[in-house]
């Protein structure tokens, strides 16, 4: 595939316009899932087709693009998506969070705070936070329309009564600007506080044909109870490589005798800290 075989950033202009309209609607109604006519992409559903379509609709030739998966730039799927846009859009790419204008992510929010000049694009598998409580789309849309979130609170309450805490560790539901309950995609709940950001955050779910958005400086509250406040927990260790105490850590098994270590999941953040220390 050479870059002349396809339009800039792969999708044709009509499709991009359709996606941009959905994005604008999403920005206008924060947290609301906007249906859009998702296209088949040349990577499988589940590999980030929603995020890829949103990125394709946002990219301009002047952009600098970064892709992370599980916080890392060098995981196979991140490499694959970065290469895809290098080839089809010819944009500059980077691994440095601060240098990127658009960051596509799966399952993490970068540790480095984002700025107003950046867009964070999330890949979303199941956009509906109520899906596992109610499998029917016609029902869940009604529940959102009526702001009927009792079922979700009952679920969280049942967690507390059974386990003593809310037993959701990732894809922890949030309420956006006091209105819509939203699935922040499967980020660890440690990342939830970063959802209140200076950057524009866009969420794309290709297979489920939904786009939603959190505009800059929007209020995002993780659901909780007064007597059981939200707790963005993480492994109680510092990073074994850079020593950071306040980052999300991957647990790496180092031998077959139970040896393990904890390292930053955000590889760019960790490498930068080590570079500064050296």
């Amino acid at each position, binding site marked *: 595939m050479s870059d002349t075989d396809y339009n800039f950033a*792969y999708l*044709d202009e009509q499709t991009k316009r359709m996606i941009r309209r959905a994005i604008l609607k999403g920005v206008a109604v924060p947290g609301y899932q906007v*249906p*859009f*006519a998702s*296209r*088949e*992409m*040349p990577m*499988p*559903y*589940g*590999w980030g*087709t929603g995020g890829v379509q949103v990125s394709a609709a946002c990219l301009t030739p002047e952009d600098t693009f970064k892709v992370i*998966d*599980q*916080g*890392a730039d*060098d*995981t*196979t*799927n991140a*490499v*694959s998506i970065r*290469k895809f846009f290098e080839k089809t859009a010819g944009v500059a790419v980077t691994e440095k969070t601060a240098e990127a204008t658009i960051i596509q992510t799966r*399952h*993490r929010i970068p540790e480095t705070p984002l700025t107003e000049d950046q867009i964070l694009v999330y890949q979303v*598998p199941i956009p509906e936070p109520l899906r596992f409580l109610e499998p*029917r*789309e*016609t029902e869940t849309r009604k529940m959102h329309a009526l702001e009927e979130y009792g079922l979700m609170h009952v679920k969280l309450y049942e967690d507390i009564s059974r*386990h*003593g*805490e809310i*037993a959701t*560790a*990732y*894809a922890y539901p949030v309420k956006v600007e006091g209105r819509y309950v939203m699935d922040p995609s*499967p*980020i*660890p*709940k*440690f990342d939830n506080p970063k959802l209140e950001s200076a950057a524009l955050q866009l969420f794309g779910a290709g*297979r489920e*044909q*939904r786009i939603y958005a959190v505009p800059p400086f929007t209020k995002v509250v993780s659901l909780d109870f007064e007597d059981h406040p939200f707790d963005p*927990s*993480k*492994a109680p260790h510092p990073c*074994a*490589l850079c020593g950071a105490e306040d980052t*999300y850590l*991957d*647990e*790496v098994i*180092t031998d077959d005798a139970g040896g393990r*270590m904890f*390292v930053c*999941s955000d*590889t760019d953040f960790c490498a930068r800290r080590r570079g500064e220390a050296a």
Partner: protein
Amino acid sequence: MYVAVKGGERAIDNAHAWLAEERRGDPGVAELSVAQIREQLSLAVNRVMAEGSLYDPDLAALAIKQARGDLIEAVFLIRAYRTTLPRFGASRPVDTGAMSCDRRISATFKDLPGGQVLGPTFDYTHRLLDFALAAEGLAVPEAERGAPAEGPMPHVTGFLAREDLIQPEPEGAETPRDLTREPLDFPADRPLRLQALTRGDEGFVLSMAYSTQRGYGRNHPFVGELRIGTVTVEMDIPELGFSMDVGEVVLTECETVNQFKGSKTEPPQFTRGYGLVFGQTERKAISMALVDRALRWEELGEDDVGAPAQDAEFVLYHSDNVQATGFLEHIKLPHYVDFQSELELIRRLRREAMAATRREAAE
């Protein structure tokens, strides 16, 4: 010291190279040509065209070659290509009544105008492995040829319609919604459901249809008619002001005649299920007709018996194999961030549970 694993990029390139080598197989064996696949694996080609929603036997054959015979992967390749094609316009509805039929059978009438035409079917073959086929270079088999059927082959349901015995299907004026250009939305009307079924996974649609036969939303179908053949595709050309034939496609059409004792809203009469699929794909077309009929319970005023095949959301959201396989297989992508958070949660919950047990034991 531990160094995080690098080299995703090189791993991908190497994996692709290995894949290409495996695709070719033993270089001592002659390479398959796309034309060979198109001509000799034509039913696989038909399935890929039907579920890929693109009528192009050469591209479907290429996709099968590239996918190493994995038909769902081939469907995916075709879909990903189709999505990049510009849309010039829509054809006129094809006239299946004017189909030049290779096969046309009715299970409801012994004989009928146009006759029963068996065509190239497996139906009455004995499924015995033909070891002679393992030898190559056999003489080209040739079937005896008769004169092409003269005269029209009217639709069987037309005979029933003349007596008002079957529910009429008036022509709708509205242009149906397009599943590939608009997000799926419920309630889904019949044209939309039919679009989803015709591109749906053959195995899924088959099993859904089968479940209705076994009692989960039984609808008593007869194959009123099954026809396979070539139809002309006509398109209005606005610049010319008239319509032109732009090509031919092979289609399989199945109309079922379903027993119906009447409901609160409809009188006793036969009802229909409809299947229309690209290529010679009769298993799929019959399955589609049964599932279509099952999904019509609401408009016919029947009871919802809670059968999976009656549930439009369930059927339509799960019939697409490209979506299904993508989401299913994505769980092999890294999930260590989510898993890590679960790991910490389960350790904490266990610690608390163990402490509680110990406390109880101590008391």
